[in-house]
């Protein structure tokens, strides 16, 4: 009865945050999210388009993603919202993250080395990765920690060399100083460096630099796994750089990812600054609808249904990983609004025969019109006041084409702006006569 806002965004990942920030320019916004977002698993890089969608295994990376947008097939989220929304979505991101991210100076993809030693084409990357770009000609020493087996520095250096980078890369493995357990969490290392903790009588940053020095052979830059601080990454890198007399960068790691965690913190701070009310912990489970409009989304608070009323709604619950799309043996569904998710009825058609092939299921998701309204099987909008954004959308395979972050920002921006305008009375959809609740 009493929880009521202009716009309600369901889902707290990149898409939900972008939608909430965009909508908050025009209206009062609340964001609800069941769990933490997949940002924590993601590398912290924001890709716009790294590979052509139908390019297959051996396609070349895309250098100019904006030039490639025009060639995308009908139904691709970028085709739905258009190139301007992609730019606006990135601008909104740049604004929210301030100087903690780099990449806005160019339309070209940057090439960032990852922990496996591959080079990833991406549009925005954390400042901490900036000194590591593969297009940079300076020689690099990669340092791995014995206990962090996800990053095998010598192997990654070999892979980089094989990928033909324009510099010499060497790898060395050191023991992280101090008495950490073998399976210490990445947050434990980060925290020790943040606080410059005393490790057997030596401050952590100094001790780490001392452990690396013997391996340094004139390289001008040194890459570490991305554990260099959580609250004060700049300070940690600066201290190490000074002691090593070399530039210091982080190599993005797999989950759980500190750059992803820092990005999440930054984005939630931006939400708070924008006056968005954000809450996590309980799932949205169903809706109350009337005359083709959603009246409320019902949240399950440990068994109790609690309605959240709003004028406009944005669905941003992610894809198969974020739990926005659910599948069982029979069907694929969108569980909250029960939006139509096109998919072949025969389960064998969901997958490609080749394990690494082009699986249709990776593109399963909600089908939307150009205003991002989910469409029913007959092509009409499911609800007048519902829009969808991010991983929940169909028509693209973010992992294959490397477009996850960009699609979330572009569609989040577009859906949030449209919802905010409608709720704020700027567009005609604001209220259907008679609906005064």
């Amino acid at each position: 009865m009493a929880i009521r806002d202009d716009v309600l965004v369901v889902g707290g990942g990149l898409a939900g945050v972008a939608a909430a920030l965009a909508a908050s320019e025009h209206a009062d916004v609340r964001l609800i999210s069941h769990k933490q977002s997949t940002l924590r698993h993601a590398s912290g890089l924001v890709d716009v388009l790294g590979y052509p969608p139908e390019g297959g295994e051996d396609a070349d990376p895309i250098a100019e993603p904006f030039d490639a947008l025009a060639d995308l097939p009908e139904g691709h989220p970028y085709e739905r919202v258009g190139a301007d929304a992609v730019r606006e979505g990135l601008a909104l991101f740049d604004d929210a993250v301030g100087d903690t991210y780099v990449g806005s100076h160019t339309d070209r993809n940057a090439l960032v080395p990852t922990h496996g030693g591959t080079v990833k084409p991406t549009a925005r990357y954390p400042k901490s990765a900036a000194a590591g770009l593969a297009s940079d000609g300076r020689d690099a020493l990669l340092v791995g920690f014995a206990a962090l087996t996800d990053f095998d520095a010598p192997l990654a250096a070999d892979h980089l060399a094989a990928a033909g980078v324009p510099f010499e890369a060497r790898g060395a493995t050191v023991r992280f100083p101090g008495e950490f357990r073998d399976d210490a969490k990445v947050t434990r290392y980060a925290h020790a460096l943040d606080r410059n903790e005393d490790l057997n009588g030596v401050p952590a940053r100094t001790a780490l630099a001392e452990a690396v020095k013997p391996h340094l052979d004139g390289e001008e830059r040194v890459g570490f796994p991305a554990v260099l601080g959580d609250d004060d990454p700049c300070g940690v890198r600066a201290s190490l750089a000074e002691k090593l007399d070399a530039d210091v960068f982080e190599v993005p790691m797999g989950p759980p990812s500190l750059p992803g965690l820092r990005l999440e913190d930054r984005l939630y701070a931006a939400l708070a600054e924008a006056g968005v009310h954000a809450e996590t912990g309980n799932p949205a489970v169903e809706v109350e609808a009337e005359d083709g409009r959603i009246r409320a989304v019902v949240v399950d608070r440990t068994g109790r249904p609690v309605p959240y009323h709003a004028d406009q709604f944005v669905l941003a619950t992610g894809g198969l990983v974020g739990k926005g799309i659910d599948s069982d043996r029979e069907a694929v569904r969108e569980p909250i609004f029960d939006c139509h998710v096109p998919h072949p009825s025969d389960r064998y058609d969901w997958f490609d025969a080749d394990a690494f092939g082009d699986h249709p299921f990776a593109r399963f998701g909600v089908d939307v019109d150009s205003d991002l309204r989910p469409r029913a099987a007959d092509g009409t909008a499911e609800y007048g006041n519902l829009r969808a954004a991010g991983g929940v959308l169909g028509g693209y395979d973010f992992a294959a084409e490397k477009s996850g972050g960009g699609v979330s920002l572009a569609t989040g921006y577009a859906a949030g702006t449209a919802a905010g305008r409608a709720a704020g009375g700027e567009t005609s959809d604001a209220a259907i006569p008679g609906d005064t609740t």
Partner: protein
Amino acid sequence: MSDAESPDDDFEPVQVFGDETEMDLRPGSDDCYKCSTCDTNCPVAEVEDEFPGPKFQGPEQWRLKRKGDHDIDDSVMKCSNCMRCDGACPSNVPLSQMHNTARGEYVDEQMDKLSVEYLRNRMLSNYRLLASLGSKVPRLANFVMGLGVTSWLGEKVMGIPSEREMPEFATQTFREWWSERGGNATSKERAREARAERGGSQVSNPDKRVAYFHGCYANYNTPEVGKAMVRVFESFGYEVMVPPQRCSGTPMFANGMLDDARRAAETNVEEFVAAIGDGADVVASCTSCSMSLRQEYPELFDLHGIEDLSNNTYEALEYLRIHEDLEGELADTEVDFPDVAYHAPCHARNQGLEGQAVEVTESIDGVEAHDVGDSCSGISGTYGWKEEHYDTSMKIGEEMFEHMEAADADTGMTECPTCAMQMEHGTGYEIKHPLELLETALVEE
């Protein structure tokens, strides 16, 4: 039984546990896909090198157990039961349920029942017993607890850190105040008056009824919170009932004392299910109590009516926001109240309630609430009361202390009584409960 009393605690310091609730949590461990998100959320793993983290405590330990007769790793006692890992897991693995069950099994089967550690944990988790003794002679108890020697003895003999000040006992408990005020009959009358003032149609509304779960702390230590709850709800026209009750079990879960917790739960379920039968919803002022009744009860015990209780329990502010136009009501109020540095307890976070106190405060003129961020206060109930965890607890709390001091306020605010102790301990601030702010804004005395 008079209103001022509560059921006895059948506390036996040494007792060999009987048959424990058998739980099969293996399916949960199969849902884990090892993403480690839970580990990056654990405040203990972030500062404590001896702690392997929730992924190990939960799914990995249960997987090991399936393979054979594996002992529970003693590190489970280092988990503070903050339940942050629950909210983190994208795959809905019931982590805290796994920890609670493992801890129960560990205490039951592997812990020496004559050890000081066991006795100390038993005593801390049965805080109500201690408090009910102390509150019989509050002045004396406060005096004795404050003596340096007692603290020092506490550390040497019981393993309670001498840095901690024992919470002060109120000279009159909440229940004593409640019965002196005339109990339920008075509340019925006040609610009726409030309804009459608010407009005729609701005057005889039998459904505006709540049963208050005050918990131990609001009863023995901060009755002003309980009084505020009663007055605020009455001002909205609710008749308040205060059924007999025992500890919510939170400190017992954290110490693996599942039998103690079960006994307390039996009383609570019986009393509150009866109140629900009388048309009441259950409301708690402590977020750990509401968490326990809602989530841990049905996860750990199989008692008749326990689901009913779980489904009808709310935190106080949450209840008003759902059932009343709280923000509208506050819209033209102005208060004389200090600005506050607000800390959201982990258990509030878990129920999705971390933003509500600040949001509600925004509607009131004359007071500002500054959120001090999402770090854990570090005390986690009885956790920070143990000598061996004191340093960890203060290390975890450091971030919160810093943010409190940086915030533009010299008073703290939170829903959780033990977080309040930690906030006070780390900063010296006086700590308020959001209900006290609501009382100031809404109730004219």
